[in-house]
């Protein structure tokens, strides 16, 4: 995987894992790879991999069972919440960019409705 080197690597992987949770590629409540496997999978430092789980745990996205490893959250509400969070971020960036180009809110809505990509 190629990283954007100006952004902390752990945040980039957390973002990726969040998307996987939302898309169901990581099943709710399922066991996550060990930090060692995570490090190997993305070719990152093992300490960074540890930090990823610590941070995700703090956000309530996963939890540790002593002696068993790390598990993804099984809360559908939590997953829905991060989905909305990421969507809000995308919309924010989109409107910011469109505002710069001089589009008003109603212009944007028209463009989206007419867009062939949808």
């Amino acid at each position, binding site marked *: 995987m190629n*990283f954007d*080197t*100006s*952004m*902390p*690597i*752990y945040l980039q992987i957390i973002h990726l894992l969040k998307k996987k949770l939302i898309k169901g590629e990581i099943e709710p409540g399922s066991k996550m790879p060990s930090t060692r496997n995570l*490090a*190997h999978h*993305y*070719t*990152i*430092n*093992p*300490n*960074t991999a540890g930090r990823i789980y610590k941070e995700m745990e703090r956000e309530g996205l996963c939890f540790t069972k002593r002696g068993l490893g790390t598990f993804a959250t099984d809360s559908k509400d939590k997953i829905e919440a991060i989905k909305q969070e990421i969507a809000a971020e995308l919309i924010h960036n989109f409107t910011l960019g469109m505002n710069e180009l001089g589009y008003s809110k109603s212009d944007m809505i028209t463009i989206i409705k007419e867009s062939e990509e949808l």
Partner: protein
Amino acid sequence: MQLLETNHLTKGFLSKKAVNGITLQIEKGKVYGLLGPNGSGKTTLMKMVAGLLHPSSGDIQIDGKPIGAETKKITAYMSTENFIYGYMSIKTVGKFFKDFYEDFRPQEFEKLIDYMELEMNMKVASLSTGMASKLKIAATLSRNSKLFMLDEPLNGIDLVAREKILNAIVEKANWDNTIIISSHLVDQMEKILDDVIFIKDGEVVLKGSAEVVREQRGKSIVDLYKEVYTSC
């Protein structure tokens, strides 16, 4: 926990000081990047820690002991030179290392050779530059040392194989050992580093956690590297 400590370490070659008063504390359980352009003193520093060069002044301690037979036992150093005899087969290299180093693990060597897509019956002299580099890395990482020093491990390695080498290094890293990697290929390297040490003209110019450096300066290690070294 500290593993390696250098104190005002200096090495001069005639009038030039290759290493000029380096004081460093290197901790256990971390991967360090020793970064700097050619001729900045990376190799000289590593060679002194490996006990291959004698410092002009200052001292070095590994695991609380001065450089000597005891520290060499726990230190695995991979130099940039091709230090493996050409007449040997890869299999013989394994045996040679086993005789030489108490902490050499033949099974790990076999696995790594397989992982690097080399074969036991290949002759060292017949290997391409990249294959020879892979062999050096496999042999070095098959030891169970406390301190690994890899001098330019990505030299002569193609883009695809670089990821493999980095992965082999990540696999080797644990709470109990320390890995120091010198490189000028900073962009490839930075994702596996805990800490970075920038050296320039034989002196440490910047040192710290890679993540903290990124956050504080708001730029990547690569950009910072360019900033530090193009201004001179």
